[in-house]
């Protein structure tokens, strides 16, 4: 009796071994690595998908598909009509937005994509100067796979802190918080068919309001993030005769810093009048300065440090007033206000009104740690 039951159960359990889930065999699917979105006609989205397909017979395993649809998910389904292999989005690495789309405040594409569990929260998001489709159609002999190329470019630059971290999680985090706006890196097409990181786009409530170049985006990361190793060329604007440029091709004085370590702190010092203090401490190695100054002399070193501090402070103040004029709170001043004022009941509208008139004091502390092998 027991034996009979045992055999019954045993054989029944084999039924569980049959796979009921939809199988996704690598040879039979196309892996989307990059998605680009643009505005199409009549309120539709133009999508450009870059995918990889495993095909032993074909020379190229990269496919670029153009499709158009009224919904975000529809873009993929429509693209399926053009492929021999079913598209899956589990390997999606980069999402690109066309500039026009962001001007219309369509940053919400990313949240729509995150409701698909297949898409990782570590997917990068970037804005394209112009149309995303044009960038993805770049044909160049040294870029065999544009999707992977863009991913590597962003990954490498994010890790070396040249580019702000703009994963889906990070962008949504800043988008869904009152008193902080996200930033997206801007990618652009080069004339000779390459891709270049050009700067950072700033937003107001999900709408593109301005662009910053890479010089300025350095300061955004300096304030929002910690540096463990970074590089930066700084133009010293100084009246001191010792620091006249001219050794190089330009008459500007340029110091090149690397191995930058930094730490920053934003404090709300006046709650009524809304006054902030940003304290930045950074140190680095100066390997190059195009001025005939003797850097072996401690006095001169002090002068250089002082002038660099001054130049940085000026740049940062300019950046902040630019962001204020565009009403984009990339540093999260609003969140600091919310967290330090009780019962502030902050709303987006209220904050944007306050933010315009906020006063920000910048304090920069800079030390040259060493100057390399030469004095």
């Amino acid at each position: 009796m027991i034996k009979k039951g045992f055999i019954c159960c045993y054989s029944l359990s084999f039924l569980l071994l049959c796979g009921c889930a939809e199988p996704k065999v690598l040879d039979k699917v196309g892996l989307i690595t990059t998605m680009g979105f643009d505005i199409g006609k009549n309120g539709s989205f133009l999508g450009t998908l870059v995918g990889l397909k495993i095909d032993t017979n074909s020379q190229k395993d990269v496919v670029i598909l153009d499709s158009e649809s009224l919904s975000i998910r529809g873009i993929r389904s429509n693209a399926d009509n053009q492929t021999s292999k079913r598209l899956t989005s589990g390997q999606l690495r980069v999402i690109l937005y066309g500039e026009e789309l962001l001007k219309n405040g369509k940053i919400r594409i990313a949240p729509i994509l995150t409701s698909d569990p297949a898409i990782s929260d570590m997917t990068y998001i970037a804005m394209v100067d112009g149309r995303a489709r044009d960038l993805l159609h770049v044909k160049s002999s040294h870029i065999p796979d544009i999707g992977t190329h863009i991913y590597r470019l962003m990954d490498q630059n994010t890790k070396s802190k040249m580019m702000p971290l703009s994963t889906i999680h990070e962008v949504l985090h800043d988008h869904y918080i009152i008193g902080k706006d996200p930033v997206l890196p801007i990618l652009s097409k080069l004339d000779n068919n390459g891709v270049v990181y050009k700067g950072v786009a700033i937003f107001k409530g999900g709408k593109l309001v301005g662009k910053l170049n890479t010089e300025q985006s350095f300061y955004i990361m300096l304030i929002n993030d910690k540096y463990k190793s970074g590089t930066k060329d700084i133009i010293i604007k100084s009246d001191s005769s010792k620091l006249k440029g001219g050794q190089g091709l330009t008459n500007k004085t340029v110091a090149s810093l690397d191995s930058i370590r930094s730490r920053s702190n934003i404090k709300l010092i006046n709650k009524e009048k809304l006054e902030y203090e940003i304290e930045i401490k950074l140190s680095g190695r100066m390997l190059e300065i195009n001025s005939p100054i003797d850097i072996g002399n401690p006095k001169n070193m002090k002068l250089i440090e002082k002038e660099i501090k001054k130049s940085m402070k000026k740049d940062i103040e300019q950046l902040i007033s630019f962001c204020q004029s565009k009403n984009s709170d990339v540093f999260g001043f609003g969140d600091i206000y919310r967290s330090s004022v009780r019962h502030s009941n902050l709303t987006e509208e209220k904050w944007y009104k306050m933010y315009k008139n906020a006063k920000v004091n910048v304090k920069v502390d800079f030390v040259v740690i060493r100057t390399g092998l030469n004095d």
Partner: protein
Amino acid sequence: MKVQYQPKQQYLLNTFLLFFIFHAMQVGIGIQAFERIIFSEAKQDAWISVVLAGIFSHVVVYIMIKTLQINGTSDIYGIQITVYGKWIGKILNCFFIFYCLLAFMIILKNYIEVLQTWIFPTVPTWLFSVSILLLVIYGFTGGIRVIVGVCFFSFILSIWMLGLIGYPLRYSELNHLLPIMETNIVSIIKGTHKMTLTIIGFEILYVVYPFLKEKDKVQKFAHLGIAATNILYLLLMLLSIIYFSPGQLEKTIWPSLTLFKIIKLPFIERIEYVIITFWLLIILPNLLLYLWAAIQGVKRTFGKKSKWVLLIFILFIFIPSLFFNSRININRLNHYFSIIAFYIVFCYPFILYALSLIRKKLTSTMEKMQ
């Protein structure tokens, strides 16, 4: 039926296993989603709600153990019959049995929903139901000692997940916790109330108590178990607040699982797929013990053989589990269940304690008078 219940020597459990029983029972399906529910009430002070709920559960367990100690070696089924008499006692016993089965179903349905949304959108519900229920039947036939063994292993084998907390911690901002105590007290209490579905599980003590060997150590291990769970909940709550921004947290259905969505290991890019399937091991002790408690109830109240009862109960769970498939329906089911659970787990122990105390006083004075 006999009110006092002394299981045979070979079925007895070491009391320290109560720690694992409690932890395994409390951590189940609620932990995947509670952060958002509490946060929508108490905002950045949600962690205070979690702490309050934890303290309250300690109090309830203390009262539960006191109630059990008054009544010698008996379980809730025996106590209810001594306190209320034969008929009302039996009806209340049926309620408790029904509650256990309902809890079983809630856990099953929620887990299947997670599986279907995250990993297998096309696999039908019945298949998951059948395969999990077969596993439960198999585990149940092993008896209480096997079931408690599952609790133990579920704890030991899932402890590695705690190590993954470090990843989301890197992207967190402590600012989100400030200002502390900004939310008013009413909202915090509301949040505490919403913790019900997450924190319940320790009511199993009412049934498991006669099986524990050293009765004097019950208090110690029960509280240790609850404290461990509470610390885990507190950690997850804090982590969710500092990792997600408020708007994000309110939109995420399963914050605990989404937390793991950013983890990328060199050999496996999406660890949450592993975690979700691994979760079966975490909910298995829940399912087993609730089913066991229900069947134990039938055995104690009506003296029926457990084999047929098991089959009937499994059918009783399987057939309704095929319905309620949409998110809205499951949410509604959870909502009603959490109301029932709140009264049964958090309010009823006090009444039962008071009544058994009165009964004991009365009988002792009666004895004195005689």
